[in-house]
C-alpha cells in the first residue's frame, strides 16, 4: 500500500473546498441548533437554494457574480422566512418536520422536467462559474501542487469560513447571542423577560440559512455544476454528523467536525482500496468499500457519542446538565 498517497489524499481533504462548504453549512446548523435550539433538518435545502439561486441568476439572467451572490443570499433568506413564519411559534419539532419536507420539495422542483430550461432538471446546470474565476488574481502556475483555479477557490472558501466564524463568534458573545441561548434553554422564560422570542428565532433561522446558501455556492463552484442529486437528505445528515463530531454550541466545532468527517472518509477509502488492490481483502469490491466507509463514519459517530458526547470542542460541563 502506498502510505504516502493515503496520507496526502487525506491531507488534501483537510482543506478541500468541499470541506469548507461542509464547515460553513455545519456552522449554520450550529447557529440553528447549537445556539438557538432550532431543529433544522433541511440544511441541504438551504444549500440547494444557494447553489441554484446563484447558477440560475447567472445563466438565465446573465447577472454579474456579485449580483448573483446577493440574489442567492436573498433567496435563502426568503426560504428561511417561508419556513419560519408558520413554524417558529410552534414547538421545536414542527420546524424539523417542515424543513425536512421543504428540502425535498426544493430538490423535486429543480428536478421536474417542466423546468428543464431553467433548472436543467436531473442533469442540473453547468458553466456558471466563469464570473468567479475571472476574478482570480493568481496567475497560472503551481501553488502547493495545485493549479491557480484550485488554489483560488480554496483561498476564497476558507477565507469565507474564517470570516463567518468570526462573525458568528462576535454575535454569540453579544447580548443578542445571550438571548438566543436563553431561548434555547427556555423560551417562555425569555418571553417573560420582555424579549420577542419569535423575532430572535427568525433572525437565527435566516443567519444559519444564509450560511447554508454560502456553503452551497462554495460546494458548487469548484465542480462547475449543480445537480439535484447532490442535495439529498443524506447531505443534511452528513452536516449533522460534522456538527456532532465537533461540538454543537461552538464556533470551531463545526469546522473541525467537517475536517474530521472528510479525513476519516478519505483515510478509510484509501486504506480499503489499498487492501483490495493488494489482494489482502478479497471479500469486498471497491464499490462495497465505498459504502462501507459511511458505515465506519456511523460507527465513529456512535463511539464519539458514547465516549465524548459533547463533541471534540464541546464543553463537558454544559453536558453534565443535559
Amino acid at each position: 500500500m502506498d502510505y504516502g498517497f493515503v496520507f496526502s489524499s487525506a491531507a488534501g481533504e483537510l482543506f478541500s473546498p468541499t470541506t469548507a462548504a461542509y464547515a460553513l453549512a455545519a456552522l449554520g446548523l450550529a447557529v440553528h441548533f447549537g445556539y438557538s435550539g432550532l431543529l433544522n433538518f433541511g440544511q441541504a435545502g438551504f444549500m440547494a437554494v444557494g447553489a441554484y439561486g446563484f447558477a440560475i441568476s447567472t445563466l438565465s439572467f446573465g447577472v454579474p457574480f456579485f449580483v448573483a451572490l446577493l440574489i442567492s443570499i436573498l433567496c435563502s433568506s426568503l426560504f428561511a422566512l417561508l419556513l419560519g413564519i408558520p413554524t417558529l411559534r410552534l414547538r421545536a419539532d414542527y420546524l424539523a418536520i417542515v424543513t425536512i419536507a421543504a428540502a425535498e420539495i426544493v430538490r423535486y422542483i429543480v428536478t421536474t422536467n417542466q423546468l428543464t430550461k431553467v433548472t436543467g432538471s436531473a442533469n442540473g446546470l453547468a458553466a456558471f462559474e466563469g464570473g468567479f474565476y475571472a476574478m482570480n488574481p493568481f496567475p497560472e502556475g503551481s501553488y502547493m501542487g495545485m493549479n491557480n483555479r484550485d488554489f483560488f477557490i480554496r483561498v476564497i472558501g476558507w477565507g469565507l469560513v474564517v470570516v463567518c466564524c468570526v462573525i458568528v463568534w462576535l454575535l454569540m458573545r453579544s447580548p443578542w447571542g445571550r438571548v438566543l441561548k436563553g431561548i434555547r434553554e427556555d423560551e417562555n422564560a425569555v418571553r417573560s423577560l420582555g424579549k420577542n422570542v419569535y423575532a430572535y428565532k427568525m433572525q437565527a433561522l435566516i443567519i444559519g440559512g444564509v450560511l447554508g446558501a454560502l456553503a452551497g455556492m462554495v460546494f458548487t463552484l469548484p465542480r462547475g455544476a449543480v445537480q439535484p442529486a447532490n442535495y439529498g437528505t443524506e447531505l443534511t445528515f452528513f452536516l449533522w454528523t460534522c456538527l456532532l463530531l465537533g461540538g454543537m454550541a461552538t464556533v470551531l466545532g463545526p469546522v473541525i467536525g467537517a475536517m474530521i468527517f472528510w479525513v476519516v472518509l478519505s483515510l478509510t477509502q484509501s486504506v480499503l482500496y489499498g487492501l483490495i488492490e493488494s489482494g489482502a481483502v478479497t471479500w469486498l469490491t471497491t464499490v462495497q468499500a465505498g459504502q462501507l466507509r459511511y458505515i465506519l463514519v456511523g460507527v465513529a459517530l456512535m463511539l464519539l457519542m458514547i465516549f465524548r458526547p459533547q463533541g471534540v470542542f464541546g464543553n463537558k460541563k454544559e453536558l453534565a446538565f443535559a
Partner: protein
Amino acid sequence: MSHSAHSMNNADRNTASTVKTANTNGNDKDAGINYMTDSSPIVVGEIAPGCKKRDPIVVAENVRRSFGGINAVDVDYLEIPRHKITALIGPNGAGKTTLFNLLTGFDTPNSGKWQFEGKNIEGVSSFKLARMGMVRTFQLTKVMGKLTVMENMRLGAANQPGERLSKALFKGIWGGREKEITAQADVLLEKFKLDVKKDDYAASLSGGQRKLLEMARSLMVRPKLVMLDEPMAGVNPALTQSLLDHIKNLKAEGMTVLFVEHDMNMVRHIADWVVVMAEGKIVAEGPPRDVMKDPAVIDAYLGAHHDVDLGDTEGIKELEAVLEADEESVVGTENAGIIAVESVVPDLKGADLKQPDLSPEALQEPGDDEPNSPQSGLAEPGRTDKDKE
C-alpha cells in the same frame, strides 16, 4: 422610562411623607405617600369579592378559561391595588397559576377583558406585557440551565442595545450598558445570597436557589408589577425571613406585588391584601386577618380536605371559633385546612402533627375559656349567600 421617573418622584416625596401621612385622608391620591407606611384604605366602598379598589393597577373583567369540562378560571371582576402586596391564595387546582398565565399573556382565555395601568391588554403578547412593566415568575421554576447565574440575570435587563442584531457585532455600542447591567445584577445577587454562585451554571443550582434566581432575574426588568408564583416554595426558612423583607421593600421602590402562596404565615406577614380563589372563582377578598376568618375561605380550604366532615355544622363553627381566637393557626399547603395542633392543644406539642385530633373534646379543652363568641367568625352573615352564587 416612566418607571424611573416615578421612583424618583417617590424619593423626592419621601422626606415630606412622614409629616403628611399623619393627616393623609386616603382619597388624596396626589399627596406624598410613603408606600411602606401608607395606611389609606385600599378599597372604595364595602369589602366583598370583586370589590373596587381606590387605585387599581390591574382590572380583570369576566375572565374565563376552561380546560375540557372544567372552568379553571371564572373571574367576574377583580382589581389588584397599586403599590400594595396582594396575596392570591386558594387550594390546589383553584386556578391561581392559570389566572397568572392569562393575565400575562401566556395563555388565552375563552372570554374576558383586562387592563394594566388603564390600558386594555387582552391579546397583547407576553413579551410586550413584560416590557410594559408586568413581569411574572413561574411555579415550575424556569432558569436557563446552560447559562451562568450572571448571564441569567443579565438576560433580564431591559434597554440593552446589544440585543439588537444590527448592533450586536459592535461591543463599543453595548459594552457600557453591559457594565451597568452587571452592576445592577451584582446588587441583586447579593441580596438574594447568590453572589457566590454567579459564575456557576444555573443548572447546578438547587431548587430553592433557582427560585431565588428567577425572582432576582425578574427584578432585573425593573417592573411595575411583579407577579410571583409560589416564590417561597422550597426556600429555606432562614432565608425566607430576609426574602420577605426584600419583597416588602419592593413596595418602597414603588412596585406592586402579586404573589401566590400556600404558606399562611408568609401571607400574614407581608400581604396588605388577600384574594382567595376556589374552583376558578374569587370567593373572598380582604386584609389578611379578616380573610382568614371568612367562612367562605374556610369552606374553600376545608372543602378540599376529605378528613373533615363538612356536614357537621357544629364542627365548622368550632373550627371557626378556634381560627378566630388563634393567630398562629395554619391554613396552608400540606396542612391545608388543618389547624395547627400545638395551638389548639398545647399539651400535644410534638405529637403526630399530620394527624391532628379534631375530635370535639380535643378542640374544646383549651378553647373553653378563650372564644367567648363562636359566632364572631361570621361577622357579616349576609356574605356567605352571596359568595355561593
